[in-house]
Structures are given as structure tokens and as C-alpha cells.
């Protein structure tokens, strides 16, 4: 062998031995500080070596919270709750794994991937109701919260009509943190004054009275009811028309298994007729708007009289620029229940769940305890613009609208929103969404729409 070749051989042997030595230096899953470098531990070929507990208690263990709260208001609320948590539970530290976009659809797609890979976060945001039950409970990803509700007394401070909606077979599965109301109709008092329209105390009692008011508004050249694009705004309007037409009991009856209200029956038919009439009073460029905000802005600008939108619109109207329009309540904007829905609180709620198989179960319990506590909800909700799920929060922290909403939350009949995942799971809601979008392309085809809704009920496995 030439010396060149023997030198080369020696070099290769040296590299090989170096790689062998470094391959021995593997560490084990450490739930200690994430900044720990790779340590050289004598490799035993047996089960992973755990670091001694002494090192673990010195550093806070991470609790990974997954949400889609990245926008103005909601991100602030989450930050306030995280700060409170880190203060009260110094042995844990929150890892904020929020995913932006799509009103939660992007986050849910990422979450589905993680759950399929067996890597659940320590808790995640989910809409309370069938979106949780139909997706995560049916998928065996979360545990029931009976013990938690019993030991913290959380169930006693929630409205009685709420508990069945967040439970399956009597076992609650989520900890509601905030409550938003869907059936709010925002209006511009100046536009109503010009058209000489007065709203009866407590709101319009039925849609026919509302249509009479719309005729007066139309006569002044303004749009009566502003509507946003196809996304969720059309379904939002549709559910409020349905609840306002058929009432709370029949609305609940649509979603029982099997339904006690017939999807092919006269209640749904009248609702669709009212919806068709309501669409005739909406702005013609509805489908071209980018999101719900331009439709609400039409009311703020005085181009439209009414806009039915959830109470996250209150933040948009009242907050300071650049996130809001800085309008004064009762002057620049005002509110009333959607026609036909007095005494009804159509709710949606963001909640947290107790996963199966996550890395830090004790951390999860601590987070749920905070999310259910009075202090936690009082820290989160005023910043987000929602109200507490608990009925005992201090009203002083909240805006005038929210104080009224808190009173209604405690006294009204609570029913669930379809648009925001309370009464129907994702699959059923998507089928209704497709039927609704097809209907919007031609609002005269009411029978076809009703047939498609009945078919959606069948394909969801609820109707026969």
C-alpha cells in the first residue's frame, strides 16, 4: 500500500470511531428545560434513562396550549390569562402554540394531524358543543370532566340550559371560557331616525314586523339589512332567521337524535321563506365583500340600517382605531335582539378540553382550573369582548353591552349556534353549508334547499 492510501485508511478509521463515540451520546426524553444541550449519558440498551427528579423541580414544566387566538383582543385576552397562570402556578410555564388563519380551520387541520400522530397538545381551544363532541369525543381524544366539575363546583355557576349542550350522555367534556351571542342585531340610530322607524321595546317580535320596517328604510334609499360574503355570515343570518321564526324549542328539536322537528316540515319551510325575503333586503354586493367587517361597517357608515352579527362586532364598533371604529354606544351604533329572538340567547363558546395521552396532565388540570376560575375568566373576557361562561363574574369589568349580555345570559333560554359548532358536528355543518351556498346562487329554489337540508340531516346519521 502506498503511504497515501494508508494515510487515507487511517483517516477513515478515525472518522468512523468518532461517529461511533458520538452515537453513544443520545439523551432521553427530558421534560426539563427546553434549553438543555445533548448530554453524553452511558447508553444502556434498555428503557430510556430518566433524569433525576431533583433537576426537574428546579425548572418549570411546559404546558402547551393550542388555540387560534392571534387577532386583536383575543390575543390580549389569552396573554392576560397566561400571565395569571404563570403567576399562580410557577411550577408550570405556558407554551403558546397558536395557529392563525381561517377562523380556526387552519388550527383544526394542524390539530387533526397532531392527534393522528399521537402528539396532542396539553389542551386546545374547541367550540363547546357538537364541534367538540362530534369531533374529539367521537374520536376518543378527550376525557370527561365529571370529577373536575364536581371538585371545583364549576357546574353550579354555569346556566342550567348550558350543561346539556356541552355534555354527552350526561358527562361534560369542555370547560367554557367565554360566551359570545349570535342573535344580536346592530343598527344605526340615525338611519332609523331618518326613516322614522322605531324598534319595539325588547326588539321585533317577528320577521313580518321587521320586513315592514325594512320597507320604510328601503324607501329612503338605504340598504335595510347588510350581509357579508358566503363564508359564515350567510349561515349566521340563516340560523337567526330560523330561530326567530320557529322559536327555541323547535330549534332544539332540529338537532336531537332523531329530530323532533321535521326538516321537511312547515317550520323549516316558513323559515326558508323568511330567509328568502330577508335576502331581498340585503346589499346586492354581499358576495363580493371580503369578510363580516365590511358589512358591519355599512351600518357604521350609515349605508345600511341593520346588521345581524355576533357580539364580537361590538369590539369592532366601539374599540379605538386601528382595530375598531371608535363609535359611541347608542349614538354611533346600537343593538337589539334579532327579530323573533327576545328571551333567547343563541350562544357559542370557546372552551378547553382534557386530552388523552398528552405530556403534562397535571399542567392541563392546572390550566383548566384557571380557565374555569372567576379570576381567569374576569381576566380574559373583558379584553376579548365576550362575557364569562360563569354567571358570577363582576359586571364592573365589562362594557355596557356586555353587562346587558351578562344579565341575559343568566336569565334567557340558552340555545346553541349552528354556525359556530354548538348544535351540529363539523360534517353535518359542512353539508348544510354546501346546501346554503348552492341556495344563495339562486334564492328562488326554496324546495331544493329544503330537500338538501333534509338530505344533510340523513347523511349526518341523525334523520332516517
Amino acid at each position: 500500500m502506498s503511504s497515501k492510501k494508508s494515510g487515507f485508511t487511517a483517516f477513515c478509521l478515525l472518522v468512523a470511531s468518532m461517529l461511533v463515540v458520538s452515537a453513544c451520546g443520545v439523551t432521553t426524553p427530558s421534560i426539563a428545560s427546553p434549553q438543555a444541550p445533548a448530554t453524553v449519558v452511558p447508553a444502556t440498551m434498555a428503557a430510556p434513562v430518566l433524569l433525576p427528579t431533583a433537576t426537574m423541580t428546579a425548572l418549570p414544566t411546559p404546558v402547551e396550549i393550542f388555540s387560534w387566538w392571534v387577532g386583536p383582543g383575543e390575543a390580549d385576552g389569552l396573554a392576560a390569562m397566561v400571565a395569571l397562570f404563570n403567576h399562580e402556578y410557577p411550577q408550570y410555564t405556558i407554551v403558546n402554540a397558536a395557529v392563525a388563519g381561517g377562523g380556526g380551520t387552519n388550527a383544526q387541520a394542524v390539530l387533526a394531524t397532531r392527534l393522528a400522530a399521537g402528539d396532542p397538545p396539553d389542551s386546545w381551544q374547541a367550540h363547546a358543543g357538537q364541534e367538540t363532541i362530534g369531533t374529539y369525543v367521537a374520536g376518543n381524544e378527550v376525557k370527561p370532566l365529571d370529577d373536575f366539575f364536581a371538585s371545583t363546583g364549576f357546574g353550579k355557576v354555569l346556566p342550567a340550559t348550558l350543561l346539556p349542550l356541552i355534555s354527552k350522555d350526561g358527562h361534560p367534556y369542555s370547560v367554557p371560557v367565554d360566551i359570545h351571542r349570535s342573535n344580536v342585531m346592530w343598527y344605526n340610530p340615525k338611519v332609523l331616525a331618518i326613516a322614522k322607524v322605531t324598534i319595539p321595546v325588547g326588539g321585533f317580535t317577528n320577521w313580518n314586523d321587521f320586513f315592514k320596517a325594512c320597507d320604510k328604510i328601503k324607501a329612503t334609499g338605504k340598504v335595510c339589512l347588510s350581509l357579508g360574503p358566503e363564508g359564515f355570515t350567510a349561515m349566521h343570518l340563516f340560523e337567526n332567521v330560523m330561530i326567530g321564526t320557529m322559536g327555541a324549542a323547535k330549534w332544539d328539536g332540529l338537532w336531537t337524535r332523531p329530530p323532533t322537528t321535521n326538516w321537511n316540515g312547515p317550520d323549516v319551510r316558513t323559515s326558508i321563506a323568511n330567509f328568502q325575503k330577508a335576502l331581498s333586503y340585503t346589499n346586492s354586493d354581499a358576495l363580493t365583500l371580503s369578510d363580516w367587517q365590511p358589512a358591519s361597517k355599512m351600518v357604521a357608515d350609515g349605508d345600511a340600517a341593520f346588521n345581524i352579527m355576533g357580539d364580537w362586532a361590538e369590539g369592532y364598533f366601539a374599540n379605538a382605531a386601528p382595530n375598531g371604529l371608535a363609535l359611541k354606544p347608542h349614538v354611533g351604533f346600537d343593538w337589539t335582539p334579532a327579530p323573533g329572538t327576545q328571551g333567547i340567547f343563541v350562544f357559542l363558546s370557546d372552551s378547553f378540553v382534557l386530552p388523552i395521552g398528552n405530556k403534562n396532565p397535571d399542567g392541563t388540570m392546572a390550566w383548566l382550573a384557571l380557565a374555569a376560575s372567576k379570576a381567569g375568566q374576569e381576566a380574559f373576557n373583558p379584553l376579548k369582548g365576550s362575557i364569562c361562561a360563569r354567571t358570577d363574574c363582576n359586571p364592573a369589568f365589562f362594557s355596557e353591552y356586555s353587562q346587558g349580555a351578562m344579565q341575559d345570559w343568566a336569565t334567557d333560554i340558552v340555545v346553541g349556534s349552528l354556525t359556530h359548532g354548538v348544535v351540529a358536528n363539523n360534517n353535518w355543518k359542512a353539508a348544510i353549508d354546501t346546501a346554503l351556498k348552492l341556495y344563495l346562487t339562486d334564492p328562488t329554489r326554496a324546495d331544493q334547499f329544503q330537500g338538501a337540508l333534509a338530505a344533510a340531516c340523513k347523511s349526518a346519521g341523525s334523520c332516517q
Partner: protein
Amino acid sequence: MLRKFTLHIPHMIMAIALMFLGMVALFILNTARLVIAGKDFTSLALILSGLITYCGVLIVVIMFHNEKVLSVGLLLPSIAAVAVFVYGFIGWSIRISLSRWQGLQPDYTWVGLKQYVLLFTDNPRFIIDIRNTGMFTVLFILGCLALGLGFAILLDQRLKGEAIFRSIFLFPMSISFIASGVVWAWLMNPSTGDHLAGINLMFHLLHLDFLISNWFTSPQPWGMAYTVIPAIWQLSGFTMALYLGGIRSISEDMREAARVDGASEFQIYRYIILPLLQPITLSAVIILAHMSLKIFDLIVALGNQDIRLDVPGIYMWTTTFAAGNYAQGAAIGVLMLISVAVLVVPYVVSTIRSETEL
């Protein structure tokens, strides 16, 4: 083959060392995890260990001095990766499309072709998808070919700033469809009256009000035709580049001969250049069609999930991730694959055949 085997001790030692090292690493990583600075590198380390072992094997193969075996051996990791991650997953998608998986828990119950049957019967949304894709594909291909050929002929006139124009025409291709979709959505804003914006506003300011259009909110099915405009804007430069290369490769002698014979420029283009460009037209059609059959990002940026502009890609995404209908999503995906394969496979087969004939 064995006759050519020459044992080279240093190489053999290295090969054995590498194989040993790789297998030891694989064994360790099977039971423990590799965490560096808080990030889990186990899967990456597993791949590297496998490759190290394989390097050792290859060194032994080199000693056999057989080119065929060595070339197959060098390609084997890539072939294996493609086989698993492309064809394996395609097969898995086909398997899922033949099930009724709905929701987070997999459900592989065999239902045969039920998902496909349901898509084609009593599913107005899928019919809209097919119609939209067909219209988009036809208009997109025709537009790109026409514009691309036009630009190529123009640039063929040996202008002074040819390189600059060529670059300018090619620039749009480098933009992602999402970005151009968002900008064109602003330009093609369909609002009229008080909320005029975008190109409609420009028409109004130029007193060309009769041109103001509802763009893609026009009555169907023609609304979909407007979505073709950004696509053509982006890809006509690519078609132009293809054609320009083809036109340049036609020797000047043929044109000279035609001119001597008394043919006008137009006749030269029509009878000589265009027929010779047929193979390029074919490859351009294949590439553009395979893009348009799978179009997703442009339509989603333009239409914001307006159902009148629905295409199979968008339907697959919403039904899989928003509704959790994994089986239906897989079926739509397989149908998209088949529609592209019908186009691409014959072309590739004929290309390979003609190349081997040469």
C-alpha cells in the same frame, strides 16, 4: 460477476466500519431519542444511520466492478423513497377512498366504489367543480398558447431590447399563485356604484363605463372564465419561452429557401414554422393542463371559497379538513390524479419510446 471481485483491504475495513456504525446507531436510536437543544432529531438521525449503513454496502458493491449493479445500487435509496412516499401514499389514498372514514378515528371499512358513486350522483357541488375545471382548462390553455405564440413571434423579430422583454414576460411566472390571486382579486373587484374599485374604477375614470364588468360574479357559467385572466398573465411567459426556443431552433436556411420561393412572411409562419412547433405545442399543453387540472391556490385567493368558483382541489381541502370526510377527500384526490395521469402518462410513454428509437 464474481470473477471481477477484487478485495481491497482498506476499502473493506471502511465498509465494515460504516456498516457497523450505522447498525449500532440504528439499534440505539430504536430505544432512545436524540434531543439536541430541545429539538427532537431522532427521525433525522435514523435516516442518516440508514444511509451510513448503505454507504458501507455500496463500497462492497464497488469492489465487484459491475456498472449495472453499482448504478442500481446508487439509485436504490431514491427509488425506495419515491416508491414509499409517492406511490405508496398514492396507493394508501386509493385504499382510503374505498373506505368510509369520517372523523378523527380511522375507519377502514371496505365500501367499494361508493364514495365515487356518491360524488357523481346527486352532488351538485362536484358537477360545478367538473364544469369549472373543464372551462378553466380549455380557456387557460388556449389563452396561454395564443399569447405565448404571439409574444414568441414578436420577439423573434430580433428587436434591440429582446433580452429585456423576454425577462419581463417571464417575471410573472416566478410569483406564487396566492400572491397574484390576491392582487388580481383587488383589481377585478366586482363592486359597482359607490364602491367602485380596481379595474372598474379605472374604466370609469377613463369614461369607458361600458366596459365595467361584474368579473367573476357574473352569471354562471361565465363568471369562472374571468379567473383565467390571472393564470394566463402568469404563464403566457412560460409558453412564450418554450415557443421561442422552438422557433429559434428552426434553421434560417428553411426560411431563406421559402423566401426565395416567393413565400410571404405570413405564409412562412403558417406553413413552415407552426407545423414544426407541434411537439412544443404538445408539451406546453401537457404542462399547462396538468397545472390547471389541479388548480387550487389561485381560485382560493380570488374567490374566497365562493361556491360558484369551486374546483376539485378546494372541495377536497374543505371536505377533508373542515368536515373531516377523509374518505370523500381521498376519492376526489384520486379522481384528480386520474385526470392528470390520463394526460401525462401517454405523453411520457411516447416520449420515452421516441427517444429509445433514436
